[in-house]
């Protein structure tokens, strides 16, 4: 492969500036001492200090974490079982249900979100259950995460040597022992990768949460959206900066772990 030519390099530099301009601007403006945003007025760390004294923001952090942890826990169990079932057993309608896995990919999220909103309110009218709030958000997130994890798990199972499970059976393991002590440990990297994806998706999600959240159940993305609608304030920049830094650290860590995993697999 040829070395990149000069125009190619210049083009890449322009694109990286374009991609990083918004990220850099948010970080820089989080240190701007101007109270109502606007032009640069000098350096301050005041906005970071106010973050920790704002109950509104702290509760958004708590909600986001509860939502992500609870939904990922539920969907990892159900999604792993589903991926295993879809790849190992056949049953009537399997093909149809395999297609069901791709609904979250092919339906625009706002359509799925309003569909769930209507569903929740109809169920509430008939039964009094599913009051909009953290519970409905968890249900909605799990709905999106299950197919994601099932797809990851199924593709990992497809690459696994069937001889290993056959050997386990020949050595006298029953179906449960075989799954628990042979298949699941081999599957673990896939399960963890799926769970990490699901967790990130939950933390990042705005549209699904926005429509299925009730009053009082605010997450970080919803908080950022509603604050920006009222006008950008420096403390929102500070909050956004912390989120951006967390994503950068998270991305680099996951990439490093993946690379190490791949290197070990090669040895």
């Amino acid at each position: 492969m040829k070395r990149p030519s000069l125009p190619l390099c210049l083009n890449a530099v322009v694109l990286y500036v374009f991609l990083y301009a918004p990220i850099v601007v948010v970080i820089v403006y989080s240190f701007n001492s101007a109270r109502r945003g606007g032009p640069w007025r000098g350096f301050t760390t005041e906005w970071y200090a106010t973050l920790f004294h704002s109950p509104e923001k702290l509760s958004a952090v708590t909600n986001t974490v509860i939502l992500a942890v609870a939904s990922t826990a539920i969907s990892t169990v159900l999604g792993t079982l589903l991926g295993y079932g879809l790849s190992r057993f056949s049953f009537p309608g399997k093909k149809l249900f395999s297609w069901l896995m791709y609904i979250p990919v092919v339906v625009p999220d706002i359509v799925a979100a309003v569909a769930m909103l209507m569903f929740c309110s109809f169920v509430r009218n008939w039964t009094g259950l599913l009051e909009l709030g953290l519970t409905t958000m968890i249900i909605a997130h799990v709905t999106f995460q299950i197919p994601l994890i099932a797809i990851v798990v199924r593709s990992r199972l497809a690459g696994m040597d069937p001889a290993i499970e056959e050997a386990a059976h020949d050595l006298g393991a029953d179906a449960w022992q075989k799954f628990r002590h042979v298949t699941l440990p081999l599957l673990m990297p896939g399960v963890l990768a799926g769970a990490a994806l699901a967790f990130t998706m939950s933390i990042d999600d705005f549209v699904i949460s926005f429509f299925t959240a009730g009053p009082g159940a605010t997450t970080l993305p919803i908080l950022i959206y509603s604050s920006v609608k009222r006008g950008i304030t420096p403390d929102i920049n500070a909050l956004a900066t912390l989120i951006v830094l967390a994503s950068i650290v998270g991305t680099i860590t996951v990439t490093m772990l993946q690379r190490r995993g791949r290197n070990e697999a090669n040895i």
Partner: protein
Amino acid sequence: MKPKIHFGEQLSPRAEQVRSALTSGPGITWVTVFLLVPLISIVVISFMSRGTYGDVQPHFTLENFKRFLGFGAFGFDPLYPKIILRSLLMALGTVALCMIVSLPLTFFIAGLPQRWKQVALMLVVIPFWTNMLIRTYAWQIIFSGTGWLARAAASLGLIAPGDALYPSAFAVFVVLTCDFLPVLALPLYASVEKIDWSIAEAASDLGADGRRVFWHALLPQIKPGLMAGAILVFIPATGQFAIPDLMGGAKTVLLGNAIQQQFGFSRDWPFGSAISCLAMAIVMIGLWLFARTAGEEGRKTLV
């Protein structure tokens, strides 16, 4: 029926159903109840009408579909046909622009030495995993009236002095491209990295000029990644609501905003459902075209 051998174990059809129900059952039930049923009901509700208090009346009507085609209760009104057209143009324009700028970018990354390749790729992955709302609202700061971009545009006479560059269709377009660029670039890079350059060399040895080498020797090799990236941008761009809401305001209402309006303050769920059905239909048509052009290879790249 004869029991079949399953991973060394004899499994009767009955036992296999029991295992299926135990493993796939809960997940399938969950997704069916909370996603498939709501999506089917959105189709059903789109044929119903709105009651006086924003409730849903079970009277069959085609009114909602007529209304967004422009034939509402008060004669022809191009408001909704315009929204459909605007959404389609925005989504397709975003896909096209992301493609045009991603192609040289991915070739640049693939041509770097191994060490720098990892860094350059990481620099595309980081924005991909950074919250889209944050990357969107930051443009409000960049495009603000006191920013140098707005001042430069004002001195060129493009906008009035002191005005911001948003809300505008231009701002929505720029932000859509910036936000979705990594979504297209990453699957495309996976294809570009695997290019067999000997085919390109053979083509140029046989006398093809640069343009023909690209069209006939390189493009067919990267088509799966290009198409997968295109569809991954097209689907969310069609239903996008936060970006046009923050960067376009009332001037650039797209399908997503129209849906949100009907489920928000307008509270006309049947009409909102009809618009949602339309958004789904547009995406399905896009996927169908994708399946036709990209074929089996492309489908594998996507899923």
